[in-house]
């Protein structure tokens, strides 16, 4: 496995490192065989916490391009890794250091940075890739970066981008249609991960199991959540692989809601490895079929 990756890295023009899988998937879709992509965080791992391994430092040391979200999601672990990797090409401010969130309109941007208000991320909500419209912005940004770093293959990157955008258009229409019957439906999520997704597809995401981002659920808060879910008849609770499914199930069992497994990263759900579109297919289908069943009851 490692030797195969190594061979690919030797043949490729650009060595690209992505902090999380959705950026890696977009980069592969655009660059195809011209680039070799390595993803640092495992898809089932909480991207707020990634444990550094020697291989991470080696990968970063040899990288031409680093893609990070740029909205402070990785602030706990990426800066020391970058310092240790000693690679000027990917330091902040260099052309090889890509902030995927640039050009994306972030929500939840605090007016003033006040830690006591639960603003884990001063730059805004970093889960913007759950809106496929933002994936398009990021993909265009990546194609530009690849063109600048490897001008000889620019035509290929543009072709890759066009193919990705065409596929995205088709899927976006299908996803919108699939979720259209549920417009205005409120959903509960563990962390404010799905606000961009909800805004795109007309769902309402304002109930969270965490009292504040990053703080484990407390009993009084869960009691409030249960009251809100009962009175507003919220039919589903979204939970990701690294979040506490037990908490979600405890709340769901008291309110008659269904727990739905979803994921932010390709590979978070089985069968979605390395493919952003397949991941969103799986997310949309999981949410839509759960909402359908809830409606039927």
């Amino acid at each position, binding site marked *: 496995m490692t030797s195969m990756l190594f061979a690919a890295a030797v043949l490729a023009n650009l060595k690209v490192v992505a902090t999380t899988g959705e950026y890696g998937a977009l980069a592969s879709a655009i660059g195809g065989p011209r680039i070799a992509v390595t993803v640092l965080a495992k898809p089932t791992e909480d991207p707020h*916490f990634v*444990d*550094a391994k020697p291989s991470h430092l*080696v990968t970063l040391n040899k990288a031409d391009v680093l893609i990070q979200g740029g909205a402070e999601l990785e602030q706990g672990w990426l800066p020391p890794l970058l310092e*240790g990797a000693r690679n000027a090409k990917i330091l902040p401010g260099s052309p090889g250091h890509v902030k995927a969130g640039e050009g994306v309109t972030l929500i939840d941007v605090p007016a003033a940075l006040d*830690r*006591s208000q*639960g*603003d884990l991320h001063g730059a805004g909500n970093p889960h913007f890739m759950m809106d496929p419209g933002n994936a398009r912005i990021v993909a265009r940004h990546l194609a530009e970066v690849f063109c600048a770093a490897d001008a000889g293959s620019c035509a290929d990157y543009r072709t890759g981008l066009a193919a990705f955008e065409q596929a995205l258009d088709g899927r976006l229409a299908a996803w919108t249609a699939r979720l259209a019957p549920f417009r205005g439906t409120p959903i509960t999520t563990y962390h404010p991960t799905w606000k961009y997704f909800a805004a795109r597809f007309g769902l309402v995401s304002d109930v969270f199991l965490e009292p504040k981002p990053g703080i*484990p659920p407390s009993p009084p808060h869960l009691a409030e959540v249960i009251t809100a879910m009962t009175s507003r008849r919220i039919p589903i609770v979204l939970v990701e692989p690294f979040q506490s499914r037990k908490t979600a199930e405890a709340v769901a069992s008291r309110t008659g809601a269904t727990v739905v497994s979803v994921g932010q990263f390709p590979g978070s759900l089985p069968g979605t490895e390395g493919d952003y579109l397949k991941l969103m297919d799986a997310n949309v289908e999981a949410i839509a079929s759960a909402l359908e069943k809830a409606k039927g009851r």
Partner: protein
Amino acid sequence: MELFTLWLWPLIALLVLPGLLVYFGLHVVERGVIFVDLALAQIAALGVCVALAMGAEAHHSLLPYAMAVSFTLIGAALFAWTRFRHARVPQEAIIGIVYVVAAAAATLVLSHTAEGDEALKNLLVGNVLLVTKGEVLRTAALFAAIGLVHLLLRRRFLLVTFDEDAARAQGVRLRLWDFLFYATFGITVTSFVQITGVYLVFSYLIVPAVCGALLTAGVQARLAIGWAVALVAGVSGLLISVYGTSLDLPTGPTIVCCFGFLLAISGVVVKLRR
């Protein structure tokens, strides 16, 4: 070999810093307060959490560090004060209670700040791979100072740990010396935890001291064996995790397992000698 520069500071950290930990380990094992390092690290973490709750930024102000040191001193006083002669309650029970209460209190304090788990995790889960030149030099200077204090006062410290009754007979002020011991120990542990994380601190304290105690009786010989064990485990763990590219192992846990392996070898050696 250009990649060697990537591992230079972790390697220096593993060569230089554990020496003091191994020395403290002899005391800790002899006193039978095996988990006191975890408790002191957790108390220091609670101090940082209180600073965060008071509105300090984690890495940009002096308040968190000052609070960590103050809380460590309070912990040191607590452990010095709870050493009783023929106690009905073993001190290890008190240490365990302090550990869980400090951990729980940190969670409570942080539930009113935004950084929550993230901050707490960063405090207790250092990663030796990411250590910077500045951290190594600062910590080495601090350890040299603490080491010097213990070198100058070694007779008293060793007497209080290894022969409590004689110390009492000589009229040594046990509470004061215990406090000094736990204060210097606590500051050492708190600094080391931020570089390597809790598991590695525990391993560096306990395993070399236990290997030494298994293999020999004299304090100096134990210290020598302990230092050898610490060096071999640290360097081989780093090398395995760095050059065993097909395994791709994280460094800290690899070092801990090397310690386990060396302890097993010591056990076999002891059996064969009998």
